[in-house]
Structure formats: structure tokens, C-alpha cells
């Protein structure tokens, strides 16, 4: 019990410390559409540390699945994308910020029946996307991007429903910002269009 309380206190201190240092942890929803295939939705986390190129270099994790998209109450293939990413955001202190991102991760498809065990159903993911991030006056970020999967299925190897081009929209909230105002609002003199 004491151990748990101690751990909890440490965690709260860490979060407050991070906030004090203006690190950013954006958490939100990711809506993704693969061109000429499925809609796959999920969650996204993105973190930028105050001591490591703050608000420019972001590390992220996202999970997008057709279970929350096209395969929801349909016969589409249920597939999951787990992504780790590193992103670079340009034009700090601007409302509209271009960004580029490199992603890697794991793809898995659930075909349902044992008869399909002869087919490839999982793969590494390697993709890149670029887009625009809209920094609102709140800790809310809206980012949209166009991406390209370097690894796809080709009929001979790789899952068949791993397609090349996708676009996505992420709505996220900086959960380290307890003022409910972004640091941009705290620095209005630097905020530019």
C-alpha cells in the first residue's frame, strides 16, 4: 500500500514537473483512410520533451484499426496498425505548422478462419507522412497528413490489405497543459499566422 502511494506521488510529481518544463503530451483520436481501401480509426499520442528540441521534435505512438472503421459491423477484414513515430514540426509559434514524420510499427490482419493460415497476415510497417498541424488557442491540435507505406502486400508476400497511400486527421489535446491554454497563448507576442 505504501509502495503504491509512493509510486502515485512520484507519478503526479513527474507529470507536474513535465508541465512546469512545458513538455507536451498530445493525446487524441486518429481518423485514417487508406486510398481505395479501408477507413481505420484509433488513438494517437505525441510527446515533445522540453529538454530535447521542444515543440519541434515529437515522438509518438498510434493505433488505428478497421475494427473502429470499415470493419465495424461489416465483412471487411479486421486489421490493426501499431505505429511508433518521430516527427519534426516546422514554424514554431505559428498557427499553421507543417510537419514531416517517419513511422515504423506492426500490422496484423485477422482473416477469421483457419483455412486462411496459408496466407501472410502480418508485416512490419514503415511509412512516412507529411502534413499540416493547426495549433488552436486551446491545447487542442488538429493535424492532417498524407502518408506513404513503403511496405505493402504484393500477392506473393505481405498482407494483401496493406496499401500504399493513406491520409489521416488527428485531433489531440495537450494533457500536460493544465492552464487550458496553450503555451502559444501564454506567449501571444510570438504567435504568428
Amino acid at each position, binding site marked *: 500500500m505504501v509502495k503504491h502511494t509512493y509510486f502515485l506521488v512520484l507519478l503526479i510529481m513527474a507529470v507536474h514537473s513535465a508541465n512546469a518544463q512545458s513538455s507536451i503530451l498530445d493525446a487524441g483520436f486518429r481518423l485514417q483512410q*487508406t*486510398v*481505395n*481501401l479501408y477507413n481505420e480509426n484509433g488513438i494517437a499520442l505525441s510527446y515533445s520533451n522540453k529538454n530535447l528540441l521542444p515543440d519541434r521534435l515529437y515522438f509518438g505512438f498510434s493505433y488505428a484499426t478497421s475494427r473502429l472503421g*470499415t470493419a465495424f459491423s*461489416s*465483412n*471487411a*477484414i479486421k486489421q490493426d496498425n501499431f505505429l511508433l513515430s518521430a516527427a519534426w514540426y516546422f514554424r514554431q509559434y505559428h498557427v499553421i505548422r507543417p510537419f514531416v514524420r517517419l513511422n515504423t510499427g506492426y500490422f496484423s*490482419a485477422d*482473416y*477469421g*478462419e483457419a*483455412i*486462411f493460415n*496459408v*496466407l501472410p497476415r502480418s508485416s512490419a510497417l514503415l511509412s512516412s507522412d507529411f502534413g499540416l498541424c493547426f495549433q488552436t488557442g486551446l491545447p487542442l491540435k488538429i493535424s492532417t497528413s498524407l502518408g506513404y507505406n513503403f511496405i*505493402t*502486400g*504484393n*500477392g*506473393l508476400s505481405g*498482407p*494483401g*490489405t*496493406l*496499401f*500504399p*497511400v493513406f491520409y489521416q486527421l488527428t485531433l489531440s489535446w495537450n494533457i500536460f497543459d493544465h492552464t487550458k491554454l496553450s503555451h502559444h497563448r501564454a506567449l501571444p507576442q510570438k504567435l504568428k499566422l
Partner: protein
Amino acid sequence: MKKILFAAMMMLALAGCKKTPVIPAADLGGGVIMDPSLTDPSAYRISVSQPNPTPAQAQIPVIICCHGYTASTFEWDEFRTWSNGTSKYYIDQVLLAGHGTTYDAFKKSTWHDWESSIMDEYNLLVKEGYQNISFAGSSTSCTLLLDMISSGFFKVSAFNFSTSTYNKIHIFLVDPIVIPSDKNLSLIGALGPVLGYVTSNNAPGEEQYYYHYRPEETLQQLQDVLNQVRDELQNGIQLPDYIYLKVYKSIRDPTADPVSAVLIYNGIKTSIGRNIDLDFVNSDIHVFTRLNLVPNVTALDRQNQIYAFTDITTRIFQ
């Protein structure tokens, strides 16, 4: 900014260029070689060679064999050869609209035109009195046949007014395509107008029977019908009790991704809610039933082909 504008203008200029390939006379599409079913239809279509069947002939199964995108009646020639003039069933080879002729005719055709060729032949055979008609489709023809089922074509066409019942229909799909192996097809809407056409890697000799040049307009049509049928499968298709459907799929296929079989299997149920029949075939050949002109054919490939032909010609009597 100037560079971006220049690049955009170049893209527009490229997109605006007319792109028509120069096709050798020895190749299909060049305007000299035509599919033989156009010049000698009675050798390919039972509806032409035997338009007035006797009551006994009308009961003999007719198998309408239809080919894939860019292919021609050649794709099912081996089935006819293997059948060796049997009197137990008839083979009817249909040429899809726009295929087996010229590049321009192909370019102007739509997937609805391709589908109409199959529908028209079926309706003609029904009109002539044939009551036991089956289908063997390969590649894109399978997609068209699935759309025909989903769209309710057979609800009208297969009804036999003389018996007030539906005629039994067997449909065999060989290497159906719903998901292409070449995923770049999904980008045809953006890249197509810039490219104009793409080329295919046909084996030596195949240029007489398969278009080498694929106009972007027809690739867009292909993408459209794939999307259409994928949507239909996602929504679910229940077969009527008078339709039997079986899928044969190569487990490695450089043209029609094997995952297409997953979508079909999961998307279709029989009239009593059961799964359809599906055989995975240990092959890496697209349309494994056509081996003529395929390089490096193995004994296993021959075995697969004969298995499919035997299975099809057995099941049409069940």
C-alpha cells in the same frame, strides 16, 4: 514557390498530352490481330453454333467461360482442348467488350460493357432454350460475375417461366480479383492522367492474346469494379438456393492478391447461411488453369489445372 508552380504546370502539361502507344501489327491491339471468336463465333459460342437446341440438347450443361482484364478467349482454350469435344457439356467462350480488338476499342470500354458481354450471352442462351447454364470465370470476370449475383441479375434472368422455377446455376471462380496484387492500382485516379497507359510484362507469345498496353481509362474502370464488388462483399451477399458458387485461388498470385479469396469467403453465404466452397491451390500462377505460354510450367501446375477442370465438370452435374 516558382519551382512549385513550374512543377505543377509541367504536371498539367503532361496530363494534357495525348498518349497513344505505337503497337506492332504482330501484337493484339495493333488493329491486325483480332480475337478469333470475332471472325468465327460459331467455334466459340454455342449460342451461335447451335441456336435451336432440341429438348435434349437444351438440358445439357453449357459452361460460359469468361476471361480476365486485357485477356481474350485464349484464356479458356485449354479447357476446350482438355474437354476433347465431349458431348456431356458445351463450352461457350465469351469475349468481353473492348477486348481482343484494338487499343482504342479497349480504351473506350467500361466495366459495365465487359459485364454486359457475359449477361448478353447468358440471356441469349436462355432465350434459345438452354436450361442448364454455368459459368467459369477467371480473374476480372469473377468480379463481374459477383456483381451480377449481387445486383440481382439472375433473379430475373434465371427464372424459367415454363416450369415456374429457377434454373440451377453453377459459378466457378478461378483466381478472382477483388484486391489487386499491384497496389499501385489504387493510385490510378491520381497517376493515370499523367501516365496515359501502363505496360504489362507478358511472356513471349502472349502479346497475341493479351493487351500489352493498358490505357489508364480501363485501369480506372478496373479499380471502379473492384471497389464496387468489395463494397458489395462488405455488406454481405446471400446466394439464392439455385446458385452454387466455388472459388479456386492460387496462394501466391502476382496479379490478384490471394486476400481476395478472404473477402469473397467472408462476404458470401449460401442460401442456408453456410460458407461457400473454397480451394486454395499451391500455385504462384495467376489463372492457374491457363498454362499455355506460361514459362517454366511444373508437373504440379499441370496437376492443379486438371484438378480444377475435373472438379468443374463434375460439379455441374450435382
